[in-house]
């Protein structure tokens, strides 16, 4: 029971981190109809910028400044890149963001090299918050949960309670009408793109010390983020939240409990072959849940696509 609680917290941290990325991605998607392939790259840039700033000014200034820089860069990409490519259609847009992701990874390697950066959590947060049955929970994890929840509530408040949020929501569905009412829709698009990438930047800043700041970090998380929003339903913010938490808990629990395929197969009624190493099914018998934890999201995605193609919360015509 205690272990379940520990894993729940761990899964929550992963899930909320995923949500910070997928929230921005899904907002951008529902607005412009294009998936930003480079979204995870902005997350990586956030971590690297925060690392560079934290050397000079400390962690907290990094947390404040790095997302701002990333957001401005994102807005620039929308203004000078995507808007130009938009005229060619959605597929070239997707290819553009793919190319951008490649370029940003190369750029990061060019500036910071291929090694992992010594980016650490601030000393003030390096203590054990509390312990559950001997498993200590670091304060930094609680801090991560705290930040993510604040950002989520803030985002929800801005989108549903403020005038700006109303205009954004209107622009998502009826851009032409909103434009006719005198609002600058391209500016709104640029703003939302900037905010979305800034969110990814925040995720990078707080994930960098835990998951490591290295050139492959965008690649590691990138495809999981896409899987998340496909599972949640393209363009649905709630779907992104549910799917993120689902994936977070699923992978954490799969890693924590060593469930063996062997037990499952014997339970069903198969008998284990005598000479396992020569059997064509040997890999099936030796699979354990920690081994497949990282591909569980993909399996879930394929299943969702077969049985519910528009995702958990997606609309039919998304």
């Amino acid at each position, binding site marked *: 029971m205690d272990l379940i609680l520990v894993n729940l917290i761990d899964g929550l941290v992963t899930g909320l981190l995923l949500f910070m990325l997928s929230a921005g991605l899904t907002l951008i*998607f529902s607005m412009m*109809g*294009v*998936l930003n392939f480079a979204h995870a790259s902005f997350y990586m840039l956030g971590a690297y910028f925060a690392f560079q700033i934290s050397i000079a000014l400390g962690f907290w200034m990094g947390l404040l400044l790095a997302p701002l820089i990333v957001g401005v860069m994102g807005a620039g990409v929308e203004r000078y*890149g995507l808007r*130009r*490519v938009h005229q*060619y259609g*959605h*597929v*070239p847009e*997707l*290819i*553009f963001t*793919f*190319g*951008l992701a*490649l*370029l940003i*990874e*190369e*750029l990061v*390697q*060019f*500036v910071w*090299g291929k090694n992992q950066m010594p980016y650490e959590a601030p000393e003030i947060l390096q203590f054990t918050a509390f312990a559950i049955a001997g498993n200590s929970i670091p304060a930094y994890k609680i801090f991560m949960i705290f930040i993510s929840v604040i950002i989520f509530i803030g985002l929800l408040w801005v989108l549903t309670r403020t005038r700006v949020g109303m205009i954004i929501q209107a622009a998502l569905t009826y851009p032409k009408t909103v434009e006719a009412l005198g609002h600058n829709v391209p500016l709104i698009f640029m703003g939302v793109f900037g905010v979305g990438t800034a969110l990814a930047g925040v995720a990078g800043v707080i994930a960098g010390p835990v998951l490591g700041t290295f050139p492959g970090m965008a*690649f590691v998380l990138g*495809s999981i983020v*896409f*899987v998340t929003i*496909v599972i949640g339903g*393209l363009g649905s913010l709630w779907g992104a939240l549910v799917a993120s938490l689902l994936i977070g808990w699923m992978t954490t629990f799969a890693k924590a409990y060593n469930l063996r395929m062997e037990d499952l197969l014997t339970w069903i009624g198969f008998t284990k072959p005598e000479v396992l190493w020569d059997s*064509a*099914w*040997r*890999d099936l018998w030796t*699979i354990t849940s920690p*081994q*497949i934890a*990282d*591909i569980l999201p*993909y*399996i879930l*995605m*394929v299943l969702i*696509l*077969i049985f519910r*193609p528009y995702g958990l919360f997606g609309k039919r015509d998304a």
Partner: protein
Amino acid sequence: MSDQFTTDPTKPAQRMRAGAMILPLSPWIIAAFLLCVMPFIFTNNSAITIMNQMAITIIFALAYNMLLGQGGMLSFGHAVYAGVGGFACMHIINWDGFFSGLPLPILPVFGGLMGMGLATIVGSFSTRKAGTVFAMISLGVGELIAACSVIIVAFFGGEEGISGDRTYGLPFFGVEFLQQIEVYYLIVFWLMLSAILMYLYSRTPMGRMANAVRDNPERAEFLGYSARWVRFYSFVASGFFAGIAGALFAINYEILTEENLNTTQSGIILLVTFLGGVGFFFGPILGAIVFTLVQTVLSLQTELWGFYLGIIFVATVMFFPGGLAGLIMMHVPALRLGKLGHLGVPYLKTLLPAAIGTLGAAALVEMTFHVRHAATGDHEMTLFWTTFDSHSFLPWIIAGVVTFVGFAITRATAPALVEAWNEANTPEGMSR
């Protein structure tokens, strides 16, 4: 339908049409001739290795373009079909009882069938939607299968992959494929065959419908075609040819690893196809040739070639969405008007300084990289056949001035080029 295409040589009009067939055939004949002669021009082994690599990439890129260019479907996981086809072939090669009765040149058929089988399974649910949804599914499935390669050791061989020996097959007219050159001709045979088949496929009603579905799926549906099934057939056909490319990879390198399946490989083929140009059939061919050459040459010269490649790719998407083939075909109207020669001098005036400026910028980039990442105390670097101290001012000033002057001249002469371009594309006696 079929009697529209048959030619009866007894009728004079038909005979003339048969004679006119030579012209569209000429690129194929020239290509076949060139492919046969190439090994006699570039005789050393490394050249043949590069050409093998190139030919395999061409088949793969053409197969990929059946989706991207002709069907409008962007796949981020197409390496999976080539990879699985290759893995299947490697298992056949290692299956003594069967392989010793099988001539090696037949083997790619099995790779193709395997790729096709996998594409049938995946396509059954992934081709429901085009565009973004298809792209995401292809990425997810690609990641899934690539990740499986470490888990399903029996088929994928885990981290070290699987390897085999192609020479154990039934000798094919006495040829045992011991040497690279023999493999080269095998690959070239399959290259020509698959390229012709893919070209013919694009001319069939099926291939034409793929274009229609790409451009306007709704209208195609109203005409009575199921957009989903058209996409599905394109996907399956593309999987077949990708499988052939994978099989040829297995024959050529005799080893397959997880690297043949992963997303990086899928990204590379997207890069190759798009750089070559998705709008024309020969685009991917061009892309594969240029990419393989650039990869081989640049990666020997600089560590930063991936960086340059990324810049070129993003610039292509932004400014020349037609790719190399699109750039070449842009000149056809001027050629038809007989005014292509008028462009020579303006091109030289603009592009030569631009090239010099680019080289200067590249030098700046290289020097920055050297200063940042070379071991401490290592101040010497070699660039453009000159060795100098990267920490002194002079090289920086030279590179900076070269870059600035190059781009300044380009900027100054660009309006003249635009003028010449408009002039060359205007028929005689017509006002613009």
